[in-house]
């Protein structure tokens, strides 16, 4: 029996090699392929493999060998976290039984249910999970494109960009100007830009206290605004200025070569410029035909199933699901719902109603942490928020320190949940 099976596999591989589609390989066990090994994809792959005890064949496709979290990358900027401590490998996920392939997915054929890889190989699936995070909308910041990311870094995807940004801030001239071009809604991590400004201010206050920070923001308001503004006033008085749409913050252009930022017709000379462009689902979601005009991939609220293909799930930042913010916490929460549903469909295990939640912590200054969170429930139309909470302005220092410590606990918890 064993021998036969091995021989069967051998011939199958050979027979299909010419077509570079080893589709029959998966016939014995149902196959799940996950595109993207970030917060969402890493979680879903690990949970399906772990909970199905090998009954499901799980393949994770992720180009990088180490995942650097965006969460806490602002704390790295501020000097509160090591760069190395942001990185996490795929060893444990692989040991859980996930077949980790370090490659790019370059196409999805949803009719024959295969994913094409950059190497030329292809893998077939019974259920596909697409979790590629974000890409930037070309042309959304006039004057900027991705090829200029070394002059004006975005530092809004995981990896080395944030090291570059930190280096630029560290070597900025005395009394220089740091400009942040903030993104329009929706974008990943709603309080992310505010937290970044806080951390840059913290850094500058120590090393370059006469430097200034200018935020150019096309949005009228943003997450945790009252908390950030209170904190900036208290910790970094006079350092931060924000230009909202009422002052021309929605009418700007950047000139990376000359480091100029033109706001409402007026030229500002920047020393460091952090451009965070408008965002959309990671490109593979679009290539797979899962996105709509918004640039995001609409999903069913009950289980993150693509609205265009019942064998495909989209989760994390790439999905358009409703009220959940695009965060690592949300992606992780959604992934557990998807893992439960996929395993149930493929093995007959029990499927439970979705439970979604999110909390985002932000650090404003040393020991000054704040948080915002909510519970979510699926309705017919979307994942809807049903309750929320947020740190209050004027909280005492003890509570803020506890909140910060809680955030470290969260970071260690979520990366252990995914990668540890």
């Amino acid at each position, binding site marked *: 029996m064993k021998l036969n099976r091995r021989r069967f596999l051998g011939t199958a591989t050979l027979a299909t090699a010419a077509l570079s589609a080893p589709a029959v390989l998966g016939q014995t066990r149902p196959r799940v392929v996950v595109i993207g090994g970030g917060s969402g994809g890493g979680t879903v792959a690990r949970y399906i493999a772990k909970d199905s005890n090998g009954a499901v064949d799980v393949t994770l496709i992720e180009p990088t060998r180490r995942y650097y979290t965006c969460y806490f990358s602002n704390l790295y900027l501020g000097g509160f976290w090591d760069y190395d401590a942001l990185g996490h490998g795929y060893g444990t996920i692989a040991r859980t039984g996930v077949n980790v392939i370090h490659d790019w997915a370059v196409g999805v054929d949803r009719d024959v249910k295969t994913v094409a890889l950059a190497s030329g190989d292809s893998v077939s699936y019974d259920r596909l999970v697409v979790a590629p995070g974000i890409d930037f909308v070309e042309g959304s910041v006039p004057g900027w494109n991705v090829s200029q990311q070394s002059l004006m870094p975005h530092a809004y995807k995981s990896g080395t960009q944030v090291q570059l940004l930190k280096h630029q801030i560290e070597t900025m001239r005395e009394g220089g100007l740091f400009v942040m071009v903030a993104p329009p809604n929706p974008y990943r991590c709603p309080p992310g830009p505010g937290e970044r400004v806080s951390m840059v201010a913290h850094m500058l206050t120590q090393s370059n206290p006469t430097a200034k920070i200018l935020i150019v923001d096309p949005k009228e308001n943003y997450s945790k605004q009252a908390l950030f503004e209170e904190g900036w006033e208290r910790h970094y008085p006079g350092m931060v200025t924000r230009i909202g749409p009422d002052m021309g913050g929605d009418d700007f252009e950047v000139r990376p070569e000359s480091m100029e930022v033109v706001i409402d017709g007026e030229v500002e000379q920047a020393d460091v410029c952090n451009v965070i462009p408008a965002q959309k689902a990671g490109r593979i979601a679009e290539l797979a035909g899962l996105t709509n005009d918004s640039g995001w991939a609409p999903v069913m609220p009950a289980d993150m199933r693509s609205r265009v293909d019942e064998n495909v799930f989209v989760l994390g930042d790439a999905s358009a699901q409703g009220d959940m913010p695009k965060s690592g916490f949300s992606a992780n929460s959604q992934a557990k719902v998807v893992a439960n549903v996929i395993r149930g469909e493929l093995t007959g295990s029990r499927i439970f109603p979705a439970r979604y939640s999110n909390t985002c912590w932000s650090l404003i200054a040393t020991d000054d942490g704040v948080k915002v969170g909510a519970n979510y*429930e*699926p*309705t017919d139309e979307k994942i809807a*928020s049903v309750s929320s909470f*947020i740190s209050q302005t004027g909280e005492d220092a003890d509570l803020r320190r506890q909140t910060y410590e809680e955030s470290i606990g969260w970071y260690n918890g979520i990366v252990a949940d995914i990668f540890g």
Partner: protein
Amino acid sequence: MKPRLVLTFCLGLALIPMEALSQASPIGDATTGAEVYRRECASCHQIGEGAVHRIGPHLNRIFDRGAGSHSDFRYSDALLRQGRDGLKWDLRRLDAYIENPRALVSGTRMSYRGLKDAQRRADLIAYLRVYSDQPQNIPEASPTAVIREVDLPESVLAIEGDVEYGEFLSSECTTCHQRTGSDAGIPGIVGWPEEDFVVAMHAYKQKLRPHAVMQSVAARLDDEEIAALAAYFHALARE
């Protein structure tokens, strides 16, 4: 080997229907709400892109806004005072204000008789919600849906209420809630479907429904007692 076995037997399992998993319900229907808005509000208020103050202030981003907080609109002193005291337009306050403006802010300049129909209010609020902060962008924004009040185990709902005991217990209720079922001032509770009654009382007990008095009444009722009251008030309607 075991996992494979499971597989053989269960692979054919069908997808479970979406509806079965849905739990929360939207605040109301925004499309219907647009119609309510046109009839009830549009003669005084603007909403949407480019909306400006008219007889009343524009209603963009009304959710979570402090009462009387547009610096460029002239409010009544009453509304300004309430705003200073912390009145915010969350779901509950908006609902109360639209139902009867003067009951919430006596002295408001908004001369509107109020909208009694709870469903139409819910739809209207869902419509207003569309022009306020979207929680995916501002996670601290107001909810967009309401959760089913309490999830009670089947066993609690199945308790057969003891009507006689309920009659005894009801004396605490009838100090305020009239046995005739009249709802003048205080809601009538006679003739309610038993399940609704049970759910409502557990919602107070779990402090999911706001109202200090009802919360404290419910706090000391156990499952049997709530079922007994439900059975009693239900039966009372048939008398």
